[in-house]
């Protein structure tokens, strides 16, 4: 279980609301005004206004629609991240099954989080929706974002806007030491036969996965399981997107199925994916107190119990601490564990927490994780 990070004696979170709909702007302002922890400092009706108002008002966070006149949301995010980096939470109706690419485009442009506007088919409770928005904005406000040069974005590379949690100075310090002192590790093939490669990710995860997973060859003998924090309804789009990038087929997991060698299975949204009886899967409703769903801790812990040393655990970029305890359980049961390093992480929250717990056996930049996995699995790097 991963709870919402403690906010401590936090101050008021200032928010710029960006939406061309006056209904949405009024609703969002009311939703944030309902809590004393937020102050809506401005409302922008299009992307251009948003860019200018971020520059002028310097809000702690931006709550932004994507479908905007004059300048669309994706371009506005890119410009804000290039000129005055600010944590942006996207709130849009253009994120669902019909337009799965928008969520990834927003994250690639630099958005920290995405929330779907409630649609007509949803069981709408505006209070719960407002509460969810406040939670996401509060978490986003704790992320320190740095300049994301637009030219780099336009160059077609996977973006790596380096974002670090302000409230984790300990993790930051330990990583800095590790980065300076540790020589690049060398790997040799594992002697234990590996059945499963388990990967957990959150903020910045889709881009990291898009860089890592295509390196796995089509004839991989191991099953691959990915747990990516994502709001309900977006996992199918993520799977479709990754399936188009990877030599291995990418599917969404379901209860009763078995993880297949040579297949990447993505944990479904809204449930915890539990591995049992070696590679069997059951999907369970998470505890009501669990903040991130699907939960990485739940999956990794079940893998530790089911497979022990016959699994490999990788914890990638992400906010919060989910996955740290699970990765530690895997390591304690003999699995080799890898954590993404701070410099290459969009947010060094989860891997930083795992590092602090001693759950990470090897801390690597994202670029090195794929080659390391191939070597550990006795596959030719670059094949």
């Amino acid at each position, binding site marked *: 279980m991963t709870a919402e990070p403690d906010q401590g004696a936090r101050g008021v979170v200032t928010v710029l609301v960006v939406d*061309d*709909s*006056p*209904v*949405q*702007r*009024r*609703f969002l302002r*009311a*939703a944030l005004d*309902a809590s004393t922890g937020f102050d809506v400092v401005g409302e922008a009706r299009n992307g251009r206004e948003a860019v200018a108002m971020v520059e002028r008002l310097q809000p702690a966070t931006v709550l932004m629609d994507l*479908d905007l006149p004059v300048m669309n949301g994706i371009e506005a995010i890119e410009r804000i991240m290039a000129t005055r980096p600010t944590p942006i939470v996207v709130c849009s*109706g*253009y994120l669902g099954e*019909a*337009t799965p690419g928008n969520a990834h485009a927003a994250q690639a442009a630099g958005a920290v989080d995405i929330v779907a*506007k*409630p*649609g*007509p*088919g*949803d069981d*709408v*409770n*505006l*209070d*719960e929706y*407002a509460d969810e928005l406040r939670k996401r904005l509060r978490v986003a406000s704790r992320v320190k974002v740095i300049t994301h040069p637009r030219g780099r974005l336009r160059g077609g590379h996977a973006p790596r806007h380096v974002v670090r949690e302000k409230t984790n100075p300990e993790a930051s310090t330990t990583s800095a030491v590790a980065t300076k002192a540790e020589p690049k590790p060398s790997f040799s093939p594992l002697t234990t036969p590996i059945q499963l490669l388990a990967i957990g990710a959150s903020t910045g995860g889709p881009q990291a996965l898009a860089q890592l997973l295509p390196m796995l060859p089509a004839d991989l003998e191991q099953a691959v399981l990915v747990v990516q924090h994502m709001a309900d309804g977006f996992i199918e789009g993520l799977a479709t997107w990754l399936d188009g990038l990877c030599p291995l087929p990418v599917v969404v997991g379901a209860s009763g199925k078995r993880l297949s060698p040579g297949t990447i299975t993505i944990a479904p949204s809204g449930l915890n994916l539990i591995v049992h009886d070696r590679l069997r899967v059951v999907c369970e409703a998470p505890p009501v107190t669990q903040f991130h769903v699907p939960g990485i801790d739940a999956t990794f812990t079940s893998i530790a119990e089911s497979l022990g040393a016959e699994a490999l655990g990788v914890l990638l970029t992400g906010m919060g601490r989910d996955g740290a305890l699970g990765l530690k359980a895997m390591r304690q049961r003999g699995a080799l564990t890898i954590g993404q390093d701070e410099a290459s992480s969009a947010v060094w929250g989860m891997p930083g927490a795992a590092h602090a717990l001693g759950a990470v056996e090897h801390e690597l930049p994202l670029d090195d994780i794929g080659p390391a996995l191939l070597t550990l699995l006795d596959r030719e790097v670059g094949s």
Partner: protein
Amino acid sequence: MVDDARIPPQRAALGSLLEVPGLRERLEDAFAGELCSRLPRLVPAAARLRRLGVRTSPATVRAIVAEVHPLASSAVVVGAHEAARAARAVEHRLLAYTEGEELPQVVVADALEHLDHLLSALTGWRSAAGAAAV
């Protein structure tokens, strides 16, 4: 201010947030205002779709999608769920045809049916907002 008596009665209970004094009225005013700006673009585009059928231009299809998409989200907020569902149905039917793909007759017929349903569901709001009739 929108006259409550003219607003369709299908609003669902949406939670305590809307019990904030004056908020529901402000949202309804905003929705009426949104209709004032969107319907004058949507209604002629719907008429073009009805008139031209499968020969309707991608620009017209895009214009319809551009209006019904935000309308659906806004209608949800004010509890106009029937209008929201109809707007989203129009969007889902047309979204794949915004870049010049061949528009099948069945898609045109479905989209027009949903558009009629949408405009019908908005009748009370439209009269409250003083929006133009079809």
